[in-house]
């Protein structure tokens, strides 16, 4: 699998504070990768290193094979920061035009119109950014990140200011990008969102990678609960396939079975377990 982002032994220290303590991570081409973790876990630092905004203390990061921070790497990526801000005096169209020039994109007005439509801002292209709501600015930020058809999109909390409809739009957009073969690293606190759209997920806590896998792998089976006349009985190691046998054994033992429930942990359970939240 060719890699859109590869991070090896990544460390970053800000004075005495160690933000990252040796993270290894790979995002494949066309993969939608979710990055989860509590505040201060090091997620944004990792994304900023990938963007070349922060220099790692140790380790390497490459974007589509080019060293992170190099001009070649920058040609391959689009980025929306968590705490971004655009010049409030210019219009959405002017901002996109500036980024087209800097990205050396030849898309022209057609690309700008397409991106504004994609994020639902067709009517607001000539509106001053200072008059846009935070949600509109965030959608404009996503359009800005897509300028020049990047191969890797780094989105740091891209839906934090969006309403449910806006989040739905972004989810649909992410799925479309996956269809186009664009790799996405999605840094988000919204576990349900990550669970819905991401192919793989990594959880970072205290600067280290504590869990990684598909959402299904992380949200592992949690046992089987059987409601009997004597009360609920939980078979913690059992899975869905074990249900007929369990019911048969209980009935054979003279129990009266009223109901059966297969327990599965959610991504939230896995997350809390991984970061030590319970």
């Amino acid at each position, binding site marked *: 699998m060719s890699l859109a982002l590869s991070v090896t032994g990544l460390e970053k220290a800000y004075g005495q504070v160690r933000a990252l303590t040796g993270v290894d991570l790979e995002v494949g081409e066309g993969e939608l990768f979710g990055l989860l973790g509590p505040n201060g876990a090091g997620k944004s630092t990792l994304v900023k290193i990938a963007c070349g905004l922060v220099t790692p203390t140790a380790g390497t990061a490459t974007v589509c094979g080019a060293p992170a921070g190099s001009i*070649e790497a920058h040609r391959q990526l689009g980025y929306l920061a968590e705490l971004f801000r655009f010049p409030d005096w210019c219009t959405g169209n002017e901002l996109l035009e500036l980024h087209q020039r800097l990205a050396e994109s030849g898309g022209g007005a057609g690309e700008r119109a397409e991106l504004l439509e994609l994020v639902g801002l067709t009517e607001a292209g000539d509106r001053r950014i200072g008059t846009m709501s935070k949600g509109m600015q965030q959608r404009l930020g996503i359009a800005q990140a897509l300028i020049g058809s990047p191969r890797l999109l780094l989105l740091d909390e891209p839906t934090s200011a969006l309403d449910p409809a806006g989040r739905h739009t972004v989810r649909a957009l992410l799925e479309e990008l996956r269809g186009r073969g664009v790799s996405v690293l999605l840094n988000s606190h919204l576990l349900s969102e990550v669970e819905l759209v991401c192919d793989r997920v990594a959880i970072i806590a205290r600067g280290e990678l504590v869990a990684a896998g598909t959402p299904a792998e992380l949200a592992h089976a949690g046992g089987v609960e059987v409601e009997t006349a004597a009360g609920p009985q939980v078979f913690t190691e059992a899975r869905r396939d074990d249900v007929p046998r369990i019911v048969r054994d209980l009935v054979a033992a003279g129990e009266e079975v009223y109901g059966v429930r297969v327990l599965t942990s959610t991504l939230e359970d896995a997350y809390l377990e991984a970061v030590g939240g319970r």
Partner: protein
Amino acid sequence: MSQVRVIALFTLRESLRRRVFLVVALLTAAFLGLYALGTWQLYRDVGDVGSNNFGVEPDVIVGATVLGLAMFGTLFLGTVLAVFLTLGAVRGDAERGLLQPLLVRPVSRRTLLLGRYAAAAGVCAAYVAAVFLAATVITWVMGGWWPDRLLGPAVGLSLAVAILAALSLGGSVFLSATANGIAVFMVFGAGLVAGLLGQIGEALSSNTLENVASVASWLLPFEGLYQAALAGLTSDTVGFTRLAIDLGPFGGAESAGPELWLWAVVYLALVGAWALRGFARRDL
């Protein structure tokens, strides 16, 4: 180079849209209006005094003095413009989240800094040259006096303000906007004080003061360039008129040799290298 131009034009468009240039133009018009009024009044007063038998030319003394004052005002206004165009260009913009989206594009930090500098220094240098020229024309219209040198002082002032813009932009890499603004104005003030010390030292024949001023002029070459620009106004003036000018508030100005111009260019390069080095290492 085209991306330097893109950054520079975007910076200029921001200043235009935020009406920075409109405000500057209005205030400069007010400054030049006051200057014209003051110059007219001074020449009228000198005209009332009449001629003298010592060979002193009052119109030259008045012209050189008021234009020297206008140069000081012009340099100050140019410095204000340079500082406000650059004081938060790096750290200030990074803290507000404005810088990061630009630097993730295939644009090097050097390109971004050069673009910002080209916009600020270009505007400020053109501004001080234009205001100086306007003040010179006003002086000529009011009193019929024209300085001995025009191009040299104009270029000197422009280079001085370009150095201050570089210091302010360089400072913005390391300091917050407020701290940087204060620092640059204090450096500017220190340069002017050093120049005054040099003039006092010359009047009192104090080698120590003159040495202090000389060292300060090399450390802060915008001051040396300003002094050279002042000296250029009356570089060909001799006799009692020269003596009278030397006794005036701008009389002790030192002319500069080619080494000052060379050093000013080297100084700009050093400030640029210092800023680029700091910017390259800064986490955003």
